[in-house]
């Protein structure tokens, strides 16, 4: 179930056109609007242990690459998660529990973890799943010829550097102790090591038929014909149309009682009609309030949960006027985030604001958040005078034309914006009013398509460092562990192809991030993360704009379906049933 820490989906852009959200709720809430009382017969005996029923799920589109080591879209990831298992998986509370693993223990020095595996696991062709398959799966990730996106999983393991460089013939990071015991060896004792043990397990006899160290091409070549030990098998894939999965008859256990899953590819403009007309049974992660109220009125069940992620503005901390902390703070004080959230996310139907404003860099559901942290955040309440004073202090003074100058240079903000983007179309006029006319900042808006913005701030960021002052993007974080901040704010990750997009460099933050990742106990790590958040907040490195709520809309025939932000609909299938 290994997913990358941060999935910046293109979807975010598409979705933001339909954005909505909901009032902050701590946990998933199920509001069932199956009105008539006459229907309360669901308590009828359900002793049947046989999987039954068909669930049609509307998703955007899977490309057909269901190889867990190589897939690249979140939609393909749904299929991967249904077909494959890892040693460990997250439960509804977001904590890890054994999946293929039965139990585990850490070594004395905390650097090694030994997993005892369940002995009844088989792949869908009947072959047993053994420690050998686990070793094989990690060997592919560590291979010098591996070209997938998950190499960071093995990067911290013992022997990776030597094996990747070709200096060693064996990879000592993952060892099979016996058929059902596997040991992971890490270079350092880090809290975050554990998550790296959950990568999907591939059958060595199937994916590794033609595999030789240094040549992973044959592993990569198996895309649609996926085989794992998970609860479902892919029995049909039609490009651009659907994926049809059936319950794996060899899967042991009473879980996953829905017999057939069809992932039907739908379009955002008509997906709600498909739901209400019965074409699909489930739409997950919906954010448009109109769709939600339509489903509510039509008597569908609704789950809602906080999105694990947020939309944010990042400023260029290396070049241009925003390299100065005072300029960043001035911009933050004169950016009325609350006004935006309260108007943009207002849902007239329920008279609620469907998103929250936050000032810390963590996901809404991160364990790093507690009252002490929230209290320590500067909320940057809208204050134009304070902003002006900060700019004066920084030496940017208003010139004859109303624009601020310093050393003869105008205070110019180069905004890298996306065209036809609902949120930006609302934000830019606000900025023109408050930053432009209010503060005397010259705003230059460059409309760039999504991939070009990524080119500016990630792929080719070294060459483009002078081309932008700020940009807007959204992020989804797939872990409650605040370690996900590491690559986005550590100075080692400044440069082309890397994640520190605001190019923020602070030795103190680097030190704290390094310190925090090694702390095993969550409670001990919290204050360190709080300190990091405080520095980032004070220095206005990032302005989180909104953190919204996701809604899962589904037919009432689907019961016991509990989702949360880290326990998506695929995970929730574990306990779900179809009651016709």
């Amino acid at each position, binding site marked *: 179930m290994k997913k*990358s*820490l*941060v*999935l*910046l*989906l*293109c979807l975010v852009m598409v979705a933001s056109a339909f954005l909505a959200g909901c009032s902050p709720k701590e946990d998933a809430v199920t509001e069932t609007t199956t009105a008539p009382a006459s229907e309360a017969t669901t308590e009828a005996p359900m002793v049947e242990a046989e999987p039954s029923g068909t669930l*049609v799920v509307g998703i955007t589109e899977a*490309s*057909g*690459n269901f190889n867990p080591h*190589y*897939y*690249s*879209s979140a939609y393909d990831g749904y299929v991967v998660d249904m077909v494959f298992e890892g040693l460990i998986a997250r439960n509804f509370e977001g904590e890890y529990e054994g999946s293929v693993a039965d139990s585990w223990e850490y070594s004395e020095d905390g650097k090694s973890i030994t997993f005892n595996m369940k002995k009844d696991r088989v792949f869908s062709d009947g072959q047993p799943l053994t420690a050998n398959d686990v070793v094989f799966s990690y060997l592919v990730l560590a291979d010098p*010829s*591996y*070209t*997938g*996106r*998950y*190499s*960071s*999983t093995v*990067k911290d393991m013992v022997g990776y550097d030597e094996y990747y460089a070709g200096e060693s013939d064996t990879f000592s990071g993952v060892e099979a102790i016996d058929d059902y015991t596997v040991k992971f060896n890490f270079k350092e004792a880090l809290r975050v090591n554990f998550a790296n043990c959950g990568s999907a397990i591939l059958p060595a006899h199937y994916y590794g038929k033609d595999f030789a160290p240094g040549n992973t091409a044959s592993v*990569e070549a198996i*895309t649609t014909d996926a085989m794992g030990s998970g609860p479902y098998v892919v029995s*049909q894939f*039609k*490009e*651009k*149309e*659907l994926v*049809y999965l059936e319950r794996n008859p060899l899967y042991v256990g009473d879980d996953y009682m829905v017999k*057939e899953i*069809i992932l*039907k*590819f*739908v*379009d955002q*403009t*008509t997906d709600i*009609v*498909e739901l209400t*007309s019965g*074409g699909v049974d489930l739409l997950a992660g919906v954010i448009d309030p109109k769709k939600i109220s339509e489903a509510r009125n039509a008597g569908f069940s609704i789950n809602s949960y906080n999105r694990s992620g947020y939309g944010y503005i990042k400023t260029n901390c290396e070049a241009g006027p925003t390299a100065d902390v005072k300029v960043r703070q001035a911009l933050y004080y004169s950016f009325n985030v609350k006004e935006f959230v309260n108007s943009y996310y207002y849902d007239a139907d329920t008279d609620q604001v469907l998103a929250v404003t936050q000032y810390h860099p963590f996901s809404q559901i991160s364990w790093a958040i507690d009252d002490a942290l929230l209290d320590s955040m500067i909320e940057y309440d809208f204050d134009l005078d304070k902003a002006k004073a900060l700019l004066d202090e920084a030496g940017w003074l208003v010139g004859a034309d109303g624009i601020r100058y310093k050393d003869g240079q105008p205070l110019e903000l180069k905004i890298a914006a996306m065209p036809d983007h609902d949120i930006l179309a609302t934000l830019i006029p606000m900025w023109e009013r408050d930053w432009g006319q209010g503060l005397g900042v010259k705003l230059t808006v460059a409309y*760039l*398509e*999504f*991939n*070009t913005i*990524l*080119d*500016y701030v990630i*792929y*080719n960021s070294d060459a483009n460092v002078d081309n932008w002052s700020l940009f807007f993007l959204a992020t989804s974080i797939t872990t409650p562990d605040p370690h996900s901040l590491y690559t986005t704010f550590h100075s080692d990750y400044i*440069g*082309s*192809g*890397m994640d520190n997009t605001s190019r923020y460099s602070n030795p103190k933050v680097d030190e704290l991030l390094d310190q925090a990742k090694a702390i095993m106990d969550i409670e001990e790590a919290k204050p360190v993360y709080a300190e990091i958040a405080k520095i980032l907040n004070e220095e206005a490195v990032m302005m989180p704009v909104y953190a919204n709520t996701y809604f899962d809309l589904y037919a009432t025939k689907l019961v016991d379906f509990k989702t949360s932000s880290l326990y998506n609909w695929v995970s929730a299938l574990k306990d779900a049933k179809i009651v016709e």
Partner: protein
Amino acid sequence: MLKYIARRLLHLIPVLLIITIILFAMLQIMPGDPVNAYLGIGSNATVEQQQQIREMLGLDQPVHIQYLKWLGRSLTGDFGTSYKFRKPVADVIGTYIWNSFYLNIVAMFFAFLIAIPVGIKSAVKKYGLFDNFWTVFSLTGVSMPSFFFALILIFFVAIPSKWLPLNGMRTTIFLAKGYDSFGQEVLDVLKHMILPVTVVTISSLASLTRYVRNSVIEVINQDYIRTARSKGLSEKVVIYKHAFRNALLPIVTLLGMYIPSLFGGSILLETVFIWPGIGHVLFTSIGDRDYSMLMAANTFYAILMLAGNLLADVSYAFVDPRVRVK
């Protein structure tokens, strides 16, 4: 005639080369990184790995070498592997292009079937009620965005009917479990075609009727039509024998031009109807910087366009003896 075709074909070679060079250059100018398409957005690959992928894809080499390599491979029929689909480009395009073709060929058949008689009748009774109706219809048809019309049909026809499918090309359950017979599949696909074909037909009908009408009007004003009329020939013979055959000339050209569009997909329409066609695939390929897909598809369309032109000229020569003399 054969000599003429052979000469024209020879002329196409340098044209095609220039087109591919321009296409290749345009892809290079685009900002963004194709390695991203390969890894997917938000990947955790290290910088060394990104470099390794760049080398594997040959993107680290100078542009002219990349082009020559591409040309060499393409001439042997190997158009490379799609970065996103991880499959040979020819397979990916082959899968989707036929779906677009089925839709377009049916729509084109209906469009010409309706446009020719309507155009002639409008021309004969110029500014009459019939002509005025089709003028308004054409203007509306041309002005209305096809995706909007598609949504109207979905919401006001398909949903109330409870029989017409909202979208897709095949019924979900058949797709998952297969059809009982080929006949059942054809019927199912035809049923799914009704709405999209209506939209495509109406949007191409609009301009097509205008073409036919104008071309007939032009011919009707010629001296030889007056001569035919003064010979005492019936109006029917004048129009269908003398006028129409001459008016066909520009329409034949039009037909040639329509051929490339048969294989092209409409992005918006395919998105709204979730028709598994080529338009949407290519559109997302641009966003993903899937160079090999874009090069292969654009070259294919260039060839089709050139072939369509050639076909139009050749058929023109067949219909109009004057062209052949030259």
